[in-house]
């Protein structure tokens, strides 16, 4: 189907963009990569009167690793494509979790156009990026005519495809903090076909002490409810050396915690089982990753 008519705006600055959003409020939608919005428009599930295209706002086309008081943070501007974040070597060196998750976001063709910030703003319960932001305890920066505010991941996604961003606000940037010290991470999924939205997806992030013990372990899950689910696995895996961690216990904890729904792709029971199996798999992957990173560091 074809979308219904709308007035098209292409501001060149953030100030102009938020002025437009302020003027048109709920009648307007931000148009970023269009990879989620245009299907909705084509199917006439949405028919906003105004679209504010942010693709040519140069100040939003940034991806960088910045130093802050607490360490490092990867900042991704609202016009930066998934593929740019995925392939940035500095981002990958600082925070491999981003590429680990991004390669599972659709296909390269979609990632050429879709933006990481747009993925966050869209807040699909099957989307990887909101779960990555939640796993890392990151935040987004939003701007309106009235000023700027920071929204922490925990307060950001409020329901399926709903966030605490107001209609007159533009998300300008996402901040993914780099976890300090020795870490390892992995992201694993089961999808009907490579590149499809996951039936279940799990990311695990571990922090390891100098004596190879797991100091902290956390999982984030997608497609397990209306919002990303984050589970602290630290106690479950135990303070064992990282190659002896009890991922079976972590899997049991996650299985008991999640409350997935049935849908056409999978039953709730199958999804819950996947959540456990994939948590253990991602946990072992994170351990391997921590070990490889340690070896790579030793070689340097």
């Amino acid at each position, binding site marked *: *189907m*074809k*979308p*219904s*008519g*709308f*007035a*098209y705006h*292409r501001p060149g600055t953030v100030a102009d963009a938020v002025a437009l959003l302020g003027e048109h409020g709920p009648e307007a939608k931000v*148009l970023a990569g*269009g*990879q989620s919005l*245009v*299907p909705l*428009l*084509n*199917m006439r599930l949405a028919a906003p009167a105004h*679209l504010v*295209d942010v*693709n040519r706002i140069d100040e939003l086309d940034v991806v960088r690793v910045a130093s802050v008081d607490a360490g490092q943070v990867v900042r991704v501007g609202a016009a930066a494509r998934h*593929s740019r974040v995925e392939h940035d070597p500095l981002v990958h060196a600082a925070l491999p979790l981003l590429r680990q998750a991004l390669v599972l976001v*659709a*296909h*390269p*063709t*979609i990632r*050429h*156009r879709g933006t990481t910030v747009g993925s966050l703003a869209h807040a699909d319960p099957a989307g990887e990026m909101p779960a990555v932001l939640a796993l890392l305890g990151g935040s987004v920066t939003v701007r309106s005519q009235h000023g700027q505010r920071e929204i922490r991941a925990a307060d950001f996604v409020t329901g399926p495809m709903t966030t605490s961003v107001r209609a007159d606000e533009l998300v300008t940037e996402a901040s993914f903090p780099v976890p300090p010290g020795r870490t390892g991470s992995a992201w694993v999924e089961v999808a009907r*076909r*490579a*590149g499809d939205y996951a039936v279940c997806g799990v990311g695990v992030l571990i922090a390891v002490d100098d004596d190879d013990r797991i100091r902290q372990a956390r999982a984030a899950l997608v497609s397990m409810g209306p919002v990303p689910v984050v589970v602290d696995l630290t106690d479950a895996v135990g303070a064992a050396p990282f190659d002896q961690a009890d991922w079976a216990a972590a899997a049991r904890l996650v299985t008991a915690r999640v409350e997935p729904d049935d849908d056409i792709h999978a039953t709730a029971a199958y999804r819950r089982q996947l959540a456990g199996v994939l948590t253990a798999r991602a946990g072992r992957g994170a351990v391997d990753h921590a070990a490889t990173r340690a070896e790579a560091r030793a070689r340097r």
Partner: protein
Amino acid sequence: MTAMTPTGPAESLHEVTLTVNGVPRSASVPARRLLSDFLRHDLGLTGTHVGCEHGVCGACTVLVDGETIRSCLQFAVMHDGAEVTTVEGCARGDGELSAVQRAFGECHGLQCGFCTPGFVTTVTAYLDQHPDPSEAEAREAITGNLCRCTGYQNIVASVLRAAQLRREEREEAPG
């Protein structure tokens, strides 16, 4: 050329200019004109096919500034000034079929042909970046494109054959 969607009096038109397959082309269209429809209806380039119009089938894949994108998920007006390559631009400069196109013919990588333009653009761009894929990589490269006829085996074979033909062309090329 007449536009496919009727334009109401309130809808304002945008002059959009793209360089398509090396040739500057312009048309006045409403903002809601999809890039796929702009190519097909406004410019008459019907090689780009439209299957699902929601980003899933890949038939509408074209290159914008050298990267594959779904033309059904973009408005033409967003791309004013861009360089676009469609399947019509994938043939060799001398008018002969490209290695990718010949490989699809040789290996029976198409039956009805509806999906083929999207495969040709996708595989052309993929081989530019990955000239020597394994079979698993060839399969992975086409996961974003649907084909209802072939069962994919012959499309995977076509990707591998195209890579081989391109290697041969490079070896034969003078210099």
